[in-house]
């Protein structure tokens, strides 16, 4: 059971059904993040319901939150923060982590030692505390949040990529390229990276989930996205009181986080073999 999507380069990148479904969900949330705010029926900060933790009605499609605000609008608005900030942070963290990791593995010597010890030191600081101090010191804004999240998750990506690259670095084809006189940028981008795309992508998926969770944590402490706006994580936190009433206000953002994070991982795990691991 597999579906093929016509791709420009070659017809026949085959994606299985799980992957296709996950891709649709991810695409849906990405679109929501971009165009969602134009479809908000209410202002996300405006109190529109006299009741709190209201049920689903035709006015309020996903009920109301603890202050009687429209949940549907708030989730649409939150998508932009959660998807946007997490995506930007994960791309930043993984791209720089992987490139530094590969460079460290290929060059070795003092460069490797200095970088590894530096990131070890960074790793030893608890991530929440580090985020807290940084945001408190600089002030919360979206670029600061992205940067802080990226810095927190960079050492992990570095370690992971370095461990993989060290193994690939000993292969004969890397030695051949070295004997040919190739420089480090060619070695890492053409000889090493193509042979570790699979594990690196899996790592990106996992790290994305961690970042979503840390972002919600920061928002809960009042250091993330500032009220009245909120990312999905803070929506869950602020409506946690609705749990005994089975309020949609707490279920819906949880579902949003769950669908996004699970889909991202399912998508990566089910990417066409041609992308994920060409050597197989």
């Amino acid at each position, binding site marked *: 059971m597999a579906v093929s999507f016509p791709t420009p380069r070659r017809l026949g990148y085959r994606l299985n059904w799980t992957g296709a479904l996950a891709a649709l969900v991810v695409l849906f949330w990405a679109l929501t993040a971009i165009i969602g705010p134009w479809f908000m029926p209410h202002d996300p900060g405006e109190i529109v319901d006299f009741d709190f933790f209201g049920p689903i009605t035709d006015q309020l499609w996903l009920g109301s939150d603890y202050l009687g605000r429209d949940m549907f609008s708030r989730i649409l608005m939150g998508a932009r923060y959660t998807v946007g900030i997490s995506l930007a942070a994960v791309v930043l963290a993984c791209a720089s982590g992987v490139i530094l990791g590969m460079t460290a593995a290929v060059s070795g010597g003092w460069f490797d030692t200095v970088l590894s010890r530096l990131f070890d030191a960074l790793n030893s600081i608890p991530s929440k505390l580090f985020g807290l101090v940084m945001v408190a010191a600089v002030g919360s804004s979206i670029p600061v949040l992205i940067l802080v999240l990226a810095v927190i998750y960079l050492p992990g990506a570095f370690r992971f990529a370095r461990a993989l690259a060290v193994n690939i670095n000993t292969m004969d*084809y890397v*030695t051949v390229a*070295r004997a040919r006189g190739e420089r480090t940028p060619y070695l890492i981008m053409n000889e090493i990276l193509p042979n570790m795309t699979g594990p690196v992508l899996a790592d990106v998926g996992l790290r994305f989930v961690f970042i979503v969770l840390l972002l919600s944590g920061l928002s809960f402490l009042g250091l993330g996205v500032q009220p009245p706006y909120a990312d999905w994580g803070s929506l869950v936190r602020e409506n946690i009181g609705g749990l005994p009433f089975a309020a949609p206000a707490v279920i819906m953002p949880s579902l949003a986080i769950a669908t996004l994070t699970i889909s991202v991982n399912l998508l990566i795990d089910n990417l066409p073999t041609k992308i994920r691991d*060409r*050597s197989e």
Partner: protein
Amino acid sequence: MQNLVEIRDLRVKATTDAGNVLPIIKGVSFDIAPGEIVALIGESGSGKTTIALTLMGHTRKGCEITGGEILLSGQDVVRMTEAQRQAMRGTEVAYVPQSAAAAFNPALRLIDQVVEVAKIHGTMPMAEARAKAIDLFRALALPDPETIGNRYPHQVSGGQLQRLSAAMALIGGPKLVIFDEPTTALDVTTQIEVLRAFKSVMKERGMAGVYVSHDLAVVAQIADRIVVLKGGEVQEIGATAQILHHPAHPYTNELLSAFEPRTFARAADPVAANAQVPVLEVSHVFAGYGPLGADRLPHKLVLKDVGCRLEKGCNLGVIGESGSGKSTLARAIAGLLPPAKGKVLLNGELLEPASAQRSKEDLRRLQIVFQLADTALNPARSIGDILGRPLTFYHGLKGAARQARIAELLEMVRLPRTMMHRLPAELSGGQKQRVNLARALAANPEVILCDEITSALDTVVAAAVIDLLKELQRELDLSYVFISHDLSTVQAICDEVMVMNGGETVETLRARDLPDGARHPYSRLLFDSIPQLDTGWLDRIPARVA
């Protein structure tokens, strides 16, 4: 007399990752009498190991026995339940794997692993099993049989480990022992000791054996009968002497002829005719690993004062056992392991020690080809990309000119040009080695360092690669440094042969004087240890005084 094993019309099919079902074994039948050693011989992919494994009722992942029967002492292995097979393995049939190093658990003492079979099957008390293991150690001519079992796998040599894995197989007193290329990974001098131990212990205990190998000369020493396989079908079955001296099947003939030493004969003698500057000269090179000591030499010195000369258009063979430093010499010449002392001259010009400091032009003129094409070709890049990179890198070729040159290179190594769109994993071993060679040719080099490039190939394929090298040499005016542990391949292509041992040059000989012209005792021992296509060879040569 009833046969111990009767295989009738055995069929095995494999399912590939893409879901295709391929027949691997296509109706094989043969018998093994009690106490007889039968060899299965063939190239890789001929199904020899698959057949050997089915004798234990085992198939590799993705394979399945689809037909036929295997009677072992009258019981059909194919129709047994898994529990019955487990009870049978180790006591009725035992297995000696190719790589003993991978078969032993590095964290446990040897004796505990050897007696494990007796422990699992509960056939004898532990004390008795240990006594029996020590008997076996003695029978297999292991040093210190009383105490060797208390060592760990890394504390014994490769040949000893292979004999210990035989002890592990023999402890349960099986009726049939399967040897799966047990000496392929060993040096020739070690191989003799192991073969001799196997032969005497099998004869003494009257056990039947199946010996899987691709090496006819090894098989000739140990087997009573030979089954020649190709593509999952039996080509010929016969007594060892008959197969060797009166082969009936053309394929057997082909295998035998690939084995005959073909000395490289040139019309003129270029070594004598050449008085000019050698294309490659290595003098007094010291190289090794680890930090530099007080004498400015590395902690673990591998090459000790090695020197050699390669005249233009000539080939130099470097021969030695594992650990002799022959591959390190190639790495030192290529600058991958910068020599601590000594000089490498290319056309009389001094080369920088490290490849990173050499000019692109120097790098281009000296190319290196590695042994394992599997790891020497980037699995994620297409053949076209692999061959195209040196073209762009050294010659700045782009676009159509680059494509045309890639096609030309593929043609040079006798591969179809459509291959440029394939990935390395889609090629056979011989094809990969050709691509590996084509990549070196792409640079238009003057010297190619060939590091054991035919060792991982089947004899027939290796012979074709050697022929290709000779042709290319005529066309392109190349010089080769040919590193190998196999004398016959070196003899087939080289003008001069340098024998190495323990990181030092033992002696340098003319290829046509080999092997009888060797004077140094080590070279004599090395050349005498190479198995001959002769059933009595093993019994004739004197035991090595250890």
